[in-house]
């Protein structure tokens, strides 16, 4: 990098030597500024990852207790009777309260009993993980310690985190509903934003005359890409919910709103990709008698596809992590069930992370971090796909 200039044969005086050294020093200083900046960014990133992963990893394990469950007739009206009284406070109510419904579906089970590993209360879970503020009462602490030596309580992989929706009971809270919601919303965003965005870009780049009007549109699109995302939420509320009557909190409302937000990004990326296709391609097509439509559709667009895809994926990744506009259209709510249609109330991953972070029970802290980890993993893989696409079909002209 520091390739010193060869001194001219005339210039061997002390002064010139000094100047050279100064220049070399400035050079290395500049290099160090860069390294420090990079180091700082890396330090922040590492700190963030260590913090999140350190907090979130325990959430992938969950305490379970081995109990003797009796399905007597009385359990149908009082689920607490299913387990020995001593253990009642150690077992998650989320599991206990589901017994009567289960028995209704399987009447043949009444009168039977079994030994079962069941979900433990969050206080037991936090106590076992050694977290402060577990709030497990003294007498239960002894009981849990005793159970642990007997091998009747353990930490197992937390499948519930991936197979259930939100819950007010921390041990029962999972990300399934919000993950499905995120997929639905993203699918809708893609469905609306990509075709509209790409068509707009094609028109502006290939067909529109260069006049004041199109330049005005251009400036506005670039401007829209930079405005705070919450404004799209307000726009979505006004147009889609209040005017068009799309149900509040629904995936459709969220998807449309995020599509609005993603549009400028897709348009800008597509235009850049189209512009990168050399004119010689177009001229060759015209020269062979192709129409404008044929030129764009058969030659220019296919060559621009990698760029368009990269831009779209990055736009969608941004939409995936967005919360502010969704708050306005009512998706930041307590919605534990996964949606069955795009008109049903839905929540999304980042909104789920937000609602958990606001919970007062401390056991939600690790769930929040675990939710962030899942979100980061999804975003990382989306970006990886974008990079992969770009590398695979990179063309040099």
């Amino acid at each position, binding site marked *: 990098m520091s390739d010193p200039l060869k001194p001219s044969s005339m210039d061997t005086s002390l002064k010139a030597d000094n100047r050279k050294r100064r220049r070399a020093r400035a050079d290395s200083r500049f290099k160090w500024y860069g390294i420090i900046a990079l180091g700082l960014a890396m330090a922040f990133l590492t700190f963030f990852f260590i913090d999140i992963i350190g907090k979130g990893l325990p959430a992938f394990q969950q305490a379970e207790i081995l109990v003797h469950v009796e399905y007597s007739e009385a359990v149908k009206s009082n689920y607490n009777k299913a387990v020995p009284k001593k253990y009642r406070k150690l077992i998650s109510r989320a599991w206990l309260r589901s017994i009567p419904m289960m028995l209704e579906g399987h009447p043949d089970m009444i009168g039977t009993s079994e030994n079962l590993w069941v979900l433990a209360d969050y206080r037991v879970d936090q106590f076992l993980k050694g977290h402060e503020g577990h709030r497990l009462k003294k007498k239960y602490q002894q009981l849990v310690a005793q159970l642990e030596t007997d091998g009747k309580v353990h930490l197992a992989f937390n499948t519930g985190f991936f197979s259930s929706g939100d819950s007010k009971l921390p041990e029962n809270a999972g990300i399934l509903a919000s993950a499905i919601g995120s997929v639905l919303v993203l699918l809708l965003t893609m*469905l609306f934003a990509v075709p509209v965005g790409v068509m707009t870009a094609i028109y502006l780049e290939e067909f529109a005359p260069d006049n004041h009007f199109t330049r005005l549109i251009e400036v506005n699109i670039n401007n829209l890409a930079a405005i705070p995302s919450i404004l799209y939420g307000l726009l979505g509320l006004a147009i889609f919910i209040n005017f068009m009557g799309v149900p509040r*909190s629904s995936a459709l409302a969220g998807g449309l709103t995020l599509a609005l937000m993603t549009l400028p990004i897709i348009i800008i990326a597509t235009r850049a990709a189209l512009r990168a296709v050399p004119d010689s391609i177009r001229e060759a097509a015209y020269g062979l008698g192709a129409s404008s439509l044929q030129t764009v559709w058969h030659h220019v667009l296919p060559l621009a596809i990698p760029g368009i895809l990269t831009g779209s994926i990055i736009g969608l990744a941004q939409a995936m992590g967005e919360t502010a506009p969704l708050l306005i259209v009512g998706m930041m*709510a*307590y919605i534990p069930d996964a949606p069955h249609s795009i008109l049903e109330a839905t929540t999304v991953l980042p909104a789920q992370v937000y609602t958990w972070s606001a919970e*007062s029970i401390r056991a939600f802290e690790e769930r929040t971090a675990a939710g962030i980890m899942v979100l980061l993993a999804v975003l990382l893989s989306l970006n990886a796909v974008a990079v992969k696409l770009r590398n695979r079909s990179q063309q040099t002209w």
Partner: protein
Amino acid sequence: MKKIIITAASLLMAATAAQAAEQIQIVGSSTVYPFSSYVAEELGATTKFKTPVVESTGSGGGMKLFCAGAGMDTPDFTNASRRMKAKEFKKCQENGVKEITEIVVGYDGIAIAQSKSAAPLNLTRKELMLAVAAEVPNKAGDGLVANPYHYWNEINAKLPHRKITIYGPPSSSGTRDAFEDMILKHITKHMSVYTSLYKADHKKNKKYKKFHEIRQDGVYVPSGENDNLIVQKLGKDAAALGIFGYSYLEENSDSIAAATVEGVAPAPETVQNGSYKLSRSLYFYIKKSHISKVPGMMEYARLFTSEQMIGDDGACAEIGLIPLPESMRDHYRSQLTKLTNLTADDFKKK
């Protein structure tokens, strides 16, 4: 790519066609939200009804949505940490939301606590306001100055010469909202020193309409969501006060005691009879016209008012609700059975 899009589109169409049955929609106060969503989850988990959607929009925001109309796209319930206002009731009537039933589920209270070793302390709401507000009236009482008080006896000579240190909730918390509402806003909105500024310039001095800015010079210490930490700090510093949700005081009664507010100590009885001032009732409102159309509404309301939820040992009490007296619980349960209508007269009584 094309194929994927087409499949996705047709899947979505199919999903939309198979539209599910109506789902209960609840909006409103963030203070009631934890209880409301708890009940919603219980309903979803123990019955065949779909879990209601609970959105925390704030009491005012909830009323606005609730009173927007009687259509099926409007909420079925709204929660509130205050009573519906006459203005809001009128709006409801105008928009075709004619029949509304009002239910009180319990109370929300905050406690001013100190170390058990500290001498008993009695404060008024105004003294508390003067201790924590960012700006307070000057000596002449005709203008505002940055809060100069560092000892309680500077505020009122009758109070002890004790350093003011208050550990309280951070701005993200619901307890902080309650504290700002009941201590700051409640007092400052009646003090002309503040309101005259607002009247002079509505836009620039909007914050003085109900002044609720808390001082940031280290006297008021926002202490995170970890209440255990506040308890520890109070143990170390006998002069300090801490602000908690009421339920927490009860849990830690071995190490902390409550300061009395206007001579009254917080307890379920004083909250219930209204003599303890730092508390408020929590409500929800039912849109009656939706009951026949949205399955599960009555079941939700019945579950919410059941002993299992809002009784003395109910699940909501465990997460911080102060229960109503038993007679009141019975009263509201019968209101629910009869679905008593809220009328314009109800607002005149006051």
